[in-house]
């Protein structure tokens, strides 16, 4: 039974069994144990030795403070893991910047005889540790070279990718089709595998897009797919290569630019102004003041009248008051502005108490036949004025223009010349 148990043991275990037998006979088989500079925190790279609490030959037990280590952050006690004895101290008190892992002492078992103790060949003495960084530098060099080569390769990929032939690549056969693509293919009776084989894709990582399928069926030109792909490709990375630093001389140009802009803006925002000249024939007994005040009230009336008048055809079959209410812009807003100038052709003025423009005009009309008899009288009894009306159309509303024109037409009734 013992034999069978042994046979099942793995090799290492077998060796171990044999060694344990040896242990029984010869107690002193272990060499001195190298005690390396411990990393007391995950970030500790090196530390100093403040003080060894034990001398060579001193016996310590597990949990005792062996030494005090100084890191860049704190002083920490290093505890012994196990009972033992200090065999040799390599790095003495006060040493600083000892890298983690460097052997700082040798420990032995409590019962070991220091004189006959074997010290193992140190694999991590200070000298070797110091040498290792130098060895690692060429490695760093190679890695950085690798990086640069990788960068250049991606650069070349990028440059080839911009070529239009490269934009359409073979479709990735492992993709899940977009719903739009799947539906399009189904309606044309093409299987997924067939489509992925035949149709070139312009999407990322060989993804088939709807445009690719449409182009394949000839429903849209191929160039538009390429153009879109190109456009998307160009937007994938922010191209800062054409950006230049601001120069001193540019400042002057920039100062002038805003003015130009302002001019442009004024030109652009120049309102539509409809100008109409109306000739007025007024009896001579009507003064300029009377005429202008009556004109004033007439224009005001016309202004309000045109604003109130709806433009839409009420009798239309398509007329719906609620819809109209929703669609027509705010009725209280002014659709146009009116300014006018009344310039007399003849400066002769007469006093008259009449204010109403129609009365004045009709009076003049009436007076014409009565005064036709003595024409010389009528010739002199009429003063002629020119009324210049400027209507500034409010462009915010779609019906402004129509209302302005209606206003002008209304005013044209005054024309008596």
């Amino acid at each position, binding site marked *: 039974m013992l034999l069978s148990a042994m046979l099942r043991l793995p090799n290492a275990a077998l060796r171990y069994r044999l060694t344990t037998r040896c*242990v029984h006979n010869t107690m002193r088989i272990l060499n001195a144990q190298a005690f390396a500079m411990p990393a007391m925190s995950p970030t500790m790279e090196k530390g100093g030795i403040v003080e060894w609490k034990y001398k060579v030959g001193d016996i310590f037990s597990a949990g005792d403070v062996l030494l005090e280590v100084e890191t860049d952050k704190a002083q920490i006690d290093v505890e012994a893991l196990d009972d033992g004895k200090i065999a040799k101290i390599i790095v003495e008190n006060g040493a600083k910047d000892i890298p983690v892992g460097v052997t700082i002492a040798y420990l032995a078992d409590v019962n070991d005889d220091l004189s006959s103790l074997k010290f193992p060949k140190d694999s991590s003495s200070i000298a070797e540790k110091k040498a290792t960084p130098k060895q690692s530098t060429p490695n760093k060099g190679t890695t950085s070279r690798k990086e640069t080569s990788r960068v250049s390769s991606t650069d070349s990929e990028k440059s080839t990718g911009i070529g239009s032939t490269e934009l359409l690549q073979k479709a*990735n056969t492992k993709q899940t089709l977009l719903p739009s693509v799947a539906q399009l293919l189904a309606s044309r009776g093409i299987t997924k595998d067939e489509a992925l084989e035949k149709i070139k894709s312009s999407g990322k990582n060989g993804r088939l897009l709807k445009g690719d399928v449409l182009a394949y069926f000839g429903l849209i030109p191929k160039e538009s797919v390429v153009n879109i792909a190109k456009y998307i490709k160009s937007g994938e990375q922010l191209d800062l290569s054409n950006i230049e630093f601001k120069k001193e001389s540019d400042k002057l140009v920039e100062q002038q630019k805003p003015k130009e802009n302002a001019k442009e803006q004024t030109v652009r925002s120049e309102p539509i102004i409809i100008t109409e000249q109306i000739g007025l024939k007024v009896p001579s007994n009507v003064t300029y003041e009377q005429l202008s005040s009556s004109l004033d009230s007439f224009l005001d009336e016309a202004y309000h009248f045109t604003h109130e008048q709806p433009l839409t055809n009420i009798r239309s079959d398509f007329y719906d008051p609620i819809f109209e209410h929703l669609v027509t812009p705010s009725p209280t807003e002014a659709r146009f502005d009116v300014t006018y100038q009344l310039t007399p052709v003849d400066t002769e003025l007469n006093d008259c108490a009449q204010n109403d423009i129609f009365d004045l005009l009709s009076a003049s009309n009436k007076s014409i036949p009565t005064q036709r008899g003595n024409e010389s009288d009528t010739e002199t009894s009429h003063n002629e004025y020119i009324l210049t009306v400027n209507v500034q159309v409010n462009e915010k509303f779609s019906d402004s223009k129509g209302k302005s024109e209606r206003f002008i037409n209304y005013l044209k009734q005054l024309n008596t010349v």
Partner: protein
Amino acid sequence: MLTAGLKRQSIFRGGRSALHRRGLSVARGFASAAKGKSGVEESDVVEVQLPESSFEGYMLDVPDLTYKTTKGTLLQMYKDMIIVRRMEMACDALYKAKKIRGFCHLSVGQEAIAVGIENAITKRDSVITSYRCHGFTYMRGASVQSVLAELMGKRSGVSYGKGGSMHMYAPGFYGGNGIVGAQVPLGTGLSFAHQYRNEDACSFTLYGDGASNQGQVFESFNMAKLWNLPTVFACENNKYGMGTSASRSSAMTEYFKRGQYIPGLKVNGMDILAVYQASRFAKDWCVSGNGPLVLEYETYRYGGHSMSDPGTTYRTRDEIQHMRSKNDPIAGLKMHLLELGIATEEEVKAYDKAARKYVDEQVELADAAPPPEAKLSILFEDVYVKGTETPTLRGRITDDTWDFEKQGFANRG
């Protein structure tokens, strides 16, 4: 002349090989046979007398303070404990040599619990514990080398180098769990599985004194009692949470009474003989249909909470040294071995040296083992049991979706 127990000697547990289980079942055979049947030499059976202070009960009669066991069992427990301790010390050294990085919680001082429980239960029982799991992993059947390799991120590690200190698993061992207290509901679920399958097995659900204040612990208590599940809620009270003593963080530090409606038992966790007896009692209790049980192993950790905790800011060094010299579980069992005439001082020393040499060898082997290959398929290989994978495994974005058949990303060119 070596004793019979020594002849069966396998200081280390044979890793994943069948041998170690065999060895144990032999020991178990002795234990059961000791109750009068033939096949065991009278000289192999020893009677253990526990001190009065070993147990304290809550709503139950404490287990017998005297019990019979075999010399082989005691010797095996000693060997297990020294291997676990050596392994943890190797972890400490490797961490300080920067070969182990990240999280690392050591159980130096608490070995009696992992070893005592494992020797008291069978392979059919399940164990689940917190992040302080190296000892349990080894005791449940993982080799020292695979545990150390796991810690160093090697491919030969028990979780293939992907789990690290807190995520180790073995047959019947449902792992170290990184989330404080999260293993308790899982362990309750394990015991539900035992009950559902009508097995004569229980689940040992371990948690620390810090985790015992977690709400999910009490939820688990309720459900376990409600359904009469065979759960052993085992609180490893090492007296300090992460930087705080138990009395500063818990309103009631009698953790074995925390079950309220669940009977409890406080055990001296620094005495492996008490742990062994209590664990056997707990298993019996659960398997015989008494429902759950709350155990409190009162123990002590010599080190800090984790490698980044010096462990001396919230307690004195004298206190630690006092526990080390007076209450050490290994030294305690050594005394018993000598008293009962199971081993001589010389032999015990030989075991110690052998354990040290063995662990040192395993450290070298683990250190020399290769790291995982730098290929992406390794990331996805253990998500499903081989052969039961879904066609694809969804990632964060569609480009991360993994195709198991293709052994590559599904949507990448």
